[in-house]
């Protein structure tokens, strides 16, 4: 049998298809994040009040602008499917790379699970509006994950084109909602004067709200996972990422403005679907329907992008033998990392079925945060080991090292914010990464080929 198998006939290795353009990158980045404007961001209001939420929105916006700048420079130079994982491998070293790979897989798989849960809950509340209570959410959670995995399995172009369409529609619905509340005339629909209160917890509440402030943008850095599938990665990825960041800053501010002008903060701080509630308060059934569909689209786009990113990261870990090499295969017809896509399906579903939504979300946020902390010393070492001019950079970010230092400071503040109220989760998640690291050093690294990890055609780094 073995002799009949198709082997690499022209000795040309298999590779993923390069078919994406900057719009797909925008859709991948914004698509993952936009669900955060429909739900989740409002927990900042619960942790510190309405004004704290706005401050968190902008401070964390600054954090992500630093992330986008740093990431654009490194990614435009290290263009590979693992994204930050490949960067870590080339700049910091294997153990860091293994951890970064795990951050990516965990952050995206958990976020995917949360998104699928949202779709299920929406179906349930939709059924309630139409007079059917106790709809079972499970089949819709499974269907969401299964359908998106199937799409991802069959090819990246269709996957991200779908994301482009539904992300755009979801974003447009936020703009429509904003215009329909008559934003310029206060006191008619919007009641900011009456609803906005002083900071209920004082300034410590502002710091505490930074934790969920990450929901406004979490996942935008996933754009660089598409580096092996985009045409001219050095140009498209910075363009798509920066464009995405601007979209999100606008969307986040609009979201805050509309929601805080309609709901008392104590309600808003715990609402499950705040934008849908906002539409309900406006009393228009068309708006309500639009926000229902838009929330579903945002959740599907996010889950879709998450499957895409998590599978690329898992695939890269397998390709380098950091994880079982079995996962490093590419589908000969669809050119996707099909085994990784398939493997993550039961995992995402099982996370969704644990029912530990806030635990899952905290894990996702913290994995993201650990990744941003890594970016700070990654950037500083990158400029030190290959100073400007020694290798070609697709994009060079200005004001180095100010963005890196700002990013590190904001990361520390966000760890502290997580400590306030979620300290036990923080420690347990750190324990996971520490145990995984020890396991990697003692058992896993022996399967890795040393020199093969360094794939960039760069000169020897300074100081090594």
């Amino acid at each position: 049998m073995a002799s009949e198998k198709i082997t690499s006939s022209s000795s040309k290795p298999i590779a993923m298809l390069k078919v994406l353009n900057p719009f797909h990158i925008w859709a991948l980045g914004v698509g993952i994040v936009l669900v955060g404007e429909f739900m989740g961001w409002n927990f900042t209001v619960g942790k510190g009040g309405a004004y704290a939420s706005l401050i968190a929105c902008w401070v964390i916006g600054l954090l992500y602008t630093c992330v986008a700048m740093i990431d654009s420079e490194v990614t435009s130079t290290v263009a590979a499917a693992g994204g930050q994982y490949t960067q870590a491998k080339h700049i910091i070293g294997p153990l860091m790379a293994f951890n970064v790979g795990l951050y990516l897989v965990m952050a995206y798989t958990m976020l995917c699970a949360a998104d699928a849960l949202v779709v299920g809950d929406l179906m349930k509340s939709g059924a309630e509006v139409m007079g059917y209570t106790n709809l079972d959410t499970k089949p819709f959670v499974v269907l969401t994950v299964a359908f998106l995995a199937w799409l991802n399995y069959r090819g990246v172009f269709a996957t991200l084109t779908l994301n482009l369409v539904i992300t755009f529609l979801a974003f447009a619905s936020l703009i429509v909602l904003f215009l329909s509340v008559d934003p310029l005339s206060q006191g008619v629909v919007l009641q900011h004067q009456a609803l906005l209160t002083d900071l209920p917890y004082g300034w410590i509440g502002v710091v505490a709200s930074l934790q969920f402030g990450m929901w406004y943008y979490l996942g935008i850095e996933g754009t660089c996972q598409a580096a092996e599938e985009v045409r001219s990665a050095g140009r498209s990825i910075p363009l798509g990422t920066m464009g995405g960041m601007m979209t999100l800053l606008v969307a986040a501010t609009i979201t805050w403005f509309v929601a805080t002008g309609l709901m008392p903060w104590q309600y808003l701080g715990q609402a499950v679907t705040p934008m849908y509630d906002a539409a309900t308060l406006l009393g228009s059934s068309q708006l309500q329907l639009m926000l229902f569909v838009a929330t579903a689209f945002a959740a599907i786009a996010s889950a879709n992008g998450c499957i895409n990113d998590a599978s690329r990261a898992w695939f890269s870990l397998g390709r380098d033998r950091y994880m079982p090499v079995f996962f490093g295969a590419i589908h000969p017809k669809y050119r996707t990392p099909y085994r990784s896509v398939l493997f993550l399906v039961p995992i995402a579903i099982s996370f969704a079925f644990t029912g530990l939504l806030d635990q899952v979300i905290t894990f996702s946020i913290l994995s993201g945060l650990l990744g941003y902390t890594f970016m700070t010393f990654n950037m500083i070492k990158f400029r030190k080991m290959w100073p400007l001019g020694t290798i070609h950079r697709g994009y060079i970010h200005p004001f180095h090292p100010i963005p890196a230092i700002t990013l590190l400071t904001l990361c520390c503040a966000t760890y502290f914010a997580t400590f306030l109220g979620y300290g036990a989760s923080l420690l347990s998640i750190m324990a996971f990464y520490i145990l995984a690291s020890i396991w990697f050093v003692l058992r896993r690294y022996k399967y890795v080929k040393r020199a093969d990890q360094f794939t960039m055609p760069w000169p020897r780094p300074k100081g090594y």
Partner: protein
Amino acid sequence: MKFWDILVYTAWSISAVMLVWMVVDAFMISSQYDEEYLMSSREGGEDDVVHGIHLEEGKE
């Protein structure tokens, strides 16, 4: 009432069909193609424009 029951069953069956299709396809691929070939991708494709520039500059 009936509509929602049918919807639930439909959702379960479509999910099952898609999952089974993917698993079957993955097995077919493993039996048709050589493992070495499926694993042969390398980081950073060789015909990449960006990497072409890297190579030239590396020689300087």
